[in-house]
């Protein structure tokens, strides 16, 4: 990936993407298919609710004592022959990885699909240093070849159809290595075979691998990657040097905690009982696997997020994508509208917290939801996404206390919301003075013949696509007074 997400606020970006019929059809088909499969996979387990509660509780407890577990993790990784690096932000993580690659003398690396390195924009940083990073996950490969951006956590090329993928392979594979066969069809098996052959050269030729991790086990210093394609296993075992960039919230205390997450994660993400490949490694082992292992622990806004007692639940996220797949907003707007590698409901609460309310894009994300609650229902670690959305809306609308790079700060309300704030204050006042409200209701009732069908100004956003309800002749409370004598 060489591009960066545009900083367009969500409503404007989504207004364009909802009009893209191909995108809408691709997303509808893909999300509805996986949605139904997930529901079936989850329904198989009688104790799903208890697993979900355990998944939330383990993460909460770990996050409460994260300082302790991270130090324990560092000790155990070091003892097992690995080297631990601490990165406060994306730039520091990218610099550490770049220097580690440079130290090997190599100019190419193979990559396991990793959200943390998408978050830091590692590929672009490596490219600047003259290092080529090859994505080896099928969907990430499609995105990289097309010079595109991921639009889904689990299925980064979900916005692409099979025919588009065939064209991308035919047109672009040659620029990156072995070309696609001339007679490539859009059959999934043929596409997968073309990718397999193309990637085989990379696996065999590269001596540096870069990965993320789904879990880090503090008690032994073990890292865990779960995946479906086996490309991860190749990247984790074949290279001489392995560099893993992992968010600090991926820590779990003990092996026994995996029992919970290895049930929750595959069923929630791919709707499988068990994912095909689970790779686990502890430091380095003589004569087997990478000779040198580096763990880059990434903060990049996580400690700030942890300081927010409502918002911190977002750090439980295990990146399963179930919330994206059920989200009616994601389904229409697509992933790119969220302006970060974390799209959908989880992105709408994660991005503004990790980055802070840094620009109009981040300020718009908490509002990119109808608060329908489908995301909370399916979340395997019970993140109450609507609660966090409303909490972040408050920070945008009213301002308030937040933490920026470890320092408590009071932020001002977003500038764009001034008119709204005044209107809301007035609304709040009127609603708290029923006599005034009644006057307004009666005025509306009396003038109802003159109400326009289309509203000017912000009201247009409603009447462009929807008729207004007719205002009745009398409000309810007048009818009540007339018929029931106003008893209170």
């Amino acid at each position, binding site marked *: 990936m060489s591009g960066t997400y545009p900083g367009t606020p969500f409503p404007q970006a989504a207004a364009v993407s909802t009009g893209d019929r191909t995108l809408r059809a691709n997303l509808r088909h893909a999300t509805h298919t996986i949605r139904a499969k997930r529901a079936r996979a989850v329904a198989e387990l009688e104790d799903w609710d208890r697993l979900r509660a355990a998944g939330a509780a383990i993460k909460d407890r770990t996050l409460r004592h994260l300082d302790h577990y991270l130090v324990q993790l560092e000790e155990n990784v070091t003892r097992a022959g690995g080297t631990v690096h601490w990165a406060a932000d994306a730039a520091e993580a990218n610099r550490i990885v770049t220097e580690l690659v440079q130290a090997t003398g190599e100019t190419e690396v193979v990559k396991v699909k990793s959200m943390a390195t998408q978050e830091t924009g590692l590929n672009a940083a490596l490219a600047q240093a003259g290092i080529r990073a090859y994505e080896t996950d099928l969907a990430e490969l499609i995105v990289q070849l097309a010079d595109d951006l991921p639009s889904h956590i689990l299925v980064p090329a979900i916005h692409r159809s099979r025919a588009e993928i065939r064209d991308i392979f035919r047109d672009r594979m040659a620029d990156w290595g072995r070309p696609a066969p001339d007679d490539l069809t859009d059959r999934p098996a043929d596409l997968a075979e073309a990718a397999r052959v193309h990637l085989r050269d990379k696996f065999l030729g590269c001596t540096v691998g870069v990965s993320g991790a789904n879990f880090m086990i503090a008690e032994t210093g073990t890292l865990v990657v779960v995946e479906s394609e086996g490309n991860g296993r190749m990247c984790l075992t074949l290279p001489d040097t392995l560099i893993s960039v992992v968010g600090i919230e991926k820590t779990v205390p003990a092996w026994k905690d995996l029992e919970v997450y290895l049930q929750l994660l595959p069923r929630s993400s791919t709707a499988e009982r068990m994912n095909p490949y689970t790779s686990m490694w502890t430091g380095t082992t003589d004569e087997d696997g990478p000779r040198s292992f580096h763990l880059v622990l990434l903060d990049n806004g996580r400690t700030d997020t942890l300081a927010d007692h409502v918002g911190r639940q977002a750090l439980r996220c295990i990146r399963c994508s179930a919330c994206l797949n059920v989200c009616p*907003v994601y389904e229409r707007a697509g992933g790119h509208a969220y302006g970060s590698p974390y799209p959908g409901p989880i992105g709408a609460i994660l991005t503004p917290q990790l980055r802070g309310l840094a620009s109009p894009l981040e300020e718009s994300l908490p509002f990119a939801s109808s608060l*329908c609650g*489908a995301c909370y229902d399916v979340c395997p670690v019970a993140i109450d996404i609507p609660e966090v959305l409303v909490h972040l809306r408050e920070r945008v609308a009213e301002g308030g206390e937040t933490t920026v790079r470890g320092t408590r700060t009071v932020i001002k309300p977003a500038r764009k919301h001034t008119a709204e704030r005044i209107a809301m204050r007035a609304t709040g006042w009127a609603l*708290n003075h*029923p006599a005034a409200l009644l006057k307004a209701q009666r005025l509306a009732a009396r003038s109802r013949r003159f109400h326009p069908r289309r509203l000017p100004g912000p009201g247009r956003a*409603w009447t462009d*696509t929807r008729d207004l309800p007719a205002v009745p002749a009398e409000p309810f409370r007048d009818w009540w007074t007339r018929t029931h004598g106003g008893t*209170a």
Partner: protein
Amino acid sequence: MRVGLFVTCVNDTLYPRTGRAVVTLLERLGVHVDFPMDQSCCGQPLYNTGYRHHTEPLLLRHAAAFRDHDYIVTPSGSCAAMVRDNYPRIARRAAFEGRGSREVTALAEAAACTASKTYELTEFLVDVLGVTDVGARFPHPVTYHPTCHGLRVLGLRDRPRRLLEHVAGLDLRELGGAEECCGFGGTFAVKNAAVSAAMGADKARAVTATGAHAVCAVDNSCLMHIGGILSRDNSPVRPVHIAEILASTDGNLP
């Protein structure tokens, strides 16, 4: 048993027919209904848009208006959810902010007292009154849209359906993708109008495909959105609050 009708500001202003239907229905079932004139809005539009502090006076007003009632009944799933789910949350947040103890106590008491006695209409009928046949007649094909807050926050489950199934003459049509949000979402409908309209258009299409003459729900705000799209498309399908169907004995489509 003192039953207070919390009609909601949307129904009071735009859909008084729904409020009248609740009164008709409950009186027919032998319930004496009261309408405290001090009531106003529960504060949901303010709270969900991020104005929690402006919501607090409305919380206190709401609790005071219904102080003497044993039950608060409302024909709105989302307003019931606001009181039950968010009022306690608002009180907890105030406590967390370290505000004065009198203020915190007032909010906590108001939240606790209203949350525990608030019932969405179909809950009140099925759980408190123990009825599923309310003696209604509505001989029309009808489809039911389970609204998000009714479905997921309140957990209404099949209560509305059980009530509809006992309405004489009613032909209940299955709605495709019933549990998907209609796209209203309060201020979401104007802040993200494009996505909201796209969701609404899909919902309206599913409604029309049932062949029903009316689409009903436990919330008029969702129906205002769905109905606004149906009306713009010149669809003959009418949005009707479930209370109006359950109150109906003449069988006329409102």
